[in-house]
């Protein structure tokens, strides 16, 4: 069946949705945050499954996982991975900082300017 099940799964239910916050953007942000938390929980459960299976098969033990200490290079790689995630998640904040350093004009101001030049 040629169906975009993802878009269908996301469908809105009939009935006006209550507004809980003054700013609709806050509603959307909370929705995205809660779904992100959900997906993090899903990933952690998957990781837990992998750890338990590895332990059951005798490949490694949970104690080994807890005791694991990366060497210097490994520590750097893992730090880099954290930095990468933080950077992605805080993109909007970084852009706000950059924006404070820029003399940005609004599109209508630019349109006005470009229509003259």
């Amino acid at each position, binding site marked *: 069946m040629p169906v975009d099940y993802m878009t269908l*799964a*996301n469908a809105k239910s*009939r009935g006006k949705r209550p507004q809980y916050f003054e700013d609709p953007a806050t509603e959307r942000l909370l929705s995205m945050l*809660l*779904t992100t938390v*959900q997906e993090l*929980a899903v990933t952690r*459960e*998957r990781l837990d*499954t992998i750890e338990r299976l590895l332990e059951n098969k005798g490949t490694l033990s949970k104690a080994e996982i807890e005791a694991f200490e990366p060497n210097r290079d490994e520590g750097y790689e893992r730090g880099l991975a954290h930095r990468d995630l933080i950077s992605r998640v805080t993109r909007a904040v970084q852009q706000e900082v950059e924006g404070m350093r820029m003399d940005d004009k609004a599109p209508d101001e630019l349109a006005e300017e470009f229509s003259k030049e």
Partner: protein
Amino acid sequence: MADEKVIDIPPAYTVVGKHDMMAKANHDETARFNYLVNMNKYLSSVLGAGNKLAYDTRVLPAFEKTHGRQPNHRHEIRRAMMLDPYHRLWSAMRRNTMEQRQQAGRSLVLRQIDELVEKAKSYNEGAETLVFDDSVELPRYVAGVDHHCMPGSYHTELFDEDVSAGANYDAGLFVTTGGALGAYADGGGQAVARWARNEHPDWQPKRILDIGATIGHNAVPIAQAYPDAEVVAIDVSKPVLRYGHARAKALGVDNISFVQMSAEDLSKFEDNSFDWVQTTMFLHETSNASMRRMMAEFHRVLKPGGLMLHIEQPQYDDEMPLYEQFIRDWDAFNNNEPFWSKLHELDLDEVFADAGFSHNECFHTGVRAWADPEIFPPSQTGDEEDHGRAAVWHALGAWKEGAPAASKEKEVA
């Protein structure tokens, strides 16, 4: 290891009863339900306590200061609470969790819809126990709102022979109720069947009508309790009937027929033709006028000595504190259950009386969902009732023309 007595964790989705019609959840889909069931429980218990705290410490004092009196109606409390930042945030989180549950169920079901449709066909093909009637009009109380934020509700057909609404409903009942309905989400039907057999051991209903049956999850345990009885499960929505019929077959239950029919018009059934008319968490999804038409029909089709039984959340009466009424009303205003609030303030005995049941034929009793204690150990924190969602209900019933006196009925448990 956390102390299980202190931290009450719902069972994992993997303990949910798996019948052949059920959508098959992969690892991450299972984990998603596990997260959602825990989130629901956390919202109702740990975070839910914040609502009463906000009410007692700031909302009520502010109300008293402004009005010089206490609130005199649950709606006054609701309007005041909807201005409180904690209650707003909690409500937004709970609404989102419901929407996420729907999304999770739909994505699980829709990615495998072809297989589910084929499987339902294999169970349903040629069956005389699945009856559709295209002349049945979708009532406004179904068409006008998607109950509990379920996109497309019970009736929308996305494809030919669609069963997705039923499969999604079945997959997610566990999540919304924190597993309290048992392995097959049938704790309501289990409870009434056990009550009928224990309290009325000599009563052998031969023909039973289950109203607003959806996927038949409450009709199945009744049919199993009375294997010689003929159970007729009616609903207006095709996708849930299709799924429910196949689900009952997959569970090996053959004495239920699934019929597309509105409870407002039972004209295909003769007067005095059923021993038992049952609704389970159904009336709150109807409307005032339609419910009164249904009651008259229930009275008409019941045999003398027959039982009418409705399972709902408790009615709001003068005994119930206004704050409790307000918090029990949450789903009405936040989870697309518009008639919920109105239904729970009605004097249903009067509604029954208008339909022809005399007052001394009517009774009220408590109901607690039955779930296998091996899989679902009783809650260790039982005091923290999830108001409006808990599997602790109220039974309102009537024995037509006599039979056991009202006040003598024991709790349904």
